């Protein structure tokens, strides 16, 4: 069994530009992921605090 590499010519110019676009767009993806997880944590804190309040009720 032998491993195959690409049968397509990916093109050096296309690889160079995809790395540049990827870095710029990747920062956006990272930012969105960070904001999403940050928002999730904040919501988590409030929901825990919220459920804690309920449990304090007699």
């Amino acid at each position: 069994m032998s491993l195959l590499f690409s049968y397509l010519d990916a093109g050096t110019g296309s690889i160079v530009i995809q790395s540049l676009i990827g870095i710029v767009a990747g920062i956006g993806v990272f930012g969105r992921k960070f904001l999403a997880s940050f928002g999730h944590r904040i919501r988590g804190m409030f929901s825990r605090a919220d459920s804690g309040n309920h449990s304090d009720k007699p």
Partner: protein
Amino acid sequence: MKRRVSQPDHDGGSFRDPAGFIFMHRGAVYRQINRSGQADYDFFIKSGLYGKLAGEGLLVAHEDIKSLNDIPSDEQRYKLIRPAPIPFISYPYEWTFSQLKDAALLTLQIQRTALSFGMILKDASAYNVQFIGRRPVFIDSLSFRIYKAGAPWDGYKQFCEHFVAPLALAVYSSPDILKTLRAYIDGMPLLAVRDLLPTRAKLHKGLLAHIYLHAASQKRYDRVEPGAAAKQPKISRLALEGLISSLTKTVNRLDLPKQKTEWGDYYNDTNYSQSALTAKKKIVKKYLEKISPKPKIVWDLGANDGTFSEIAAGLGSYVVASDVDSLAVELNYTKNRSLVLRDMILPIIQDLANPSPALGWAHAERRSFEQRGPADAVMALALIHHLAISNTLPFNKIAEYFAQLGKYLIIEFIPKSDSKIQILLHRRVNMFEDYTQENFEAAFGIYFTTVAREPVRGSKRVIYLFKVKPTKIAHDK
């Protein structure tokens, strides 16, 4: 007794990827996976990616075939699979704008899913997508490769040439430009597309990146100096996700400006009264029900927005609804339909005066329109006058061609007095003296027998049900 071994019939368009190929055998489609594609294919199955994509209807499902006894042995062969059949193979140069856009978005969705399973698409050909009615499905189960950290997407250039470039040209010029994909079956060269786009296209952030800067980068780096070492930048997983996200946004933001179709208002702007239209629908339904056995595949030629295709689909036939007007096909593709009808009607662009030819290497990579037939039944409603008058095709030529396309033909004859013909005859008053019902019947009588013939109440039009004469065409050869 020695078993007879028949050579598998290789698909003419399946030869580039050494990981395997498609072949036809005893009327069914199979895919051979070669030993060189074994590692990637096994990972594709075991990682759960295949199950996820096939389960969601994004990828054509397949069944494993243990062996086929009557094909020759092949030491390259690792496995055989039988993909679920696609009722009609269509090509990107026959798709309307939204079909190409949906195919692009499907490819990107599959790429995202593949990455989350530790795989990557190794190519991004538009020919890897087919349509089942309105639903795009990915058909190449050998397009997946195990992802290696830092590896770029080899299919990025192909994705831009097959999808981004033609979609951008369609938006900034005309959706008809997509028909030129016939000439560019390996995708549109970005340098040429950059020169064809208007300057204002640079204001589109996605096109600036994926067309203009991409083309400039190709021009700068694609010239390989002899002896130069192939040094390629690595691309992080996050950058790859960013690239896919950027492409998705770019494709999503490409939309056609609102335009009027040539025949898009046909049913609202006709000399048909509502009662005549209802009568016509009844005749078409009655004729379809008369055909025995029930047609599995119907080709509706000149289908416009698919009003009559819906009748055939409602009776259980899969309908290939073709029209020359790309905006009418767009309207047909985006029309609101029930879930059942959505999967039963495939709208495609087809100019019958210049139908899709066989294309590619040895004219065998992409089949002609006719080679994908014959259909069980063909419908040609409100079409004959376009062919006979607009395209000056003699009746006998039309009859001869239609006899190649299907086993039955439902065709509407429209007399010269019809308002639609009067529009076509404007400035050509003294021509087409032989455009008569008698000549029509005589020409079609050479190739067909008349099963039924009925005037449309409330109009001067007549609808025929013809059956092709077996002596004229060997459909089941």
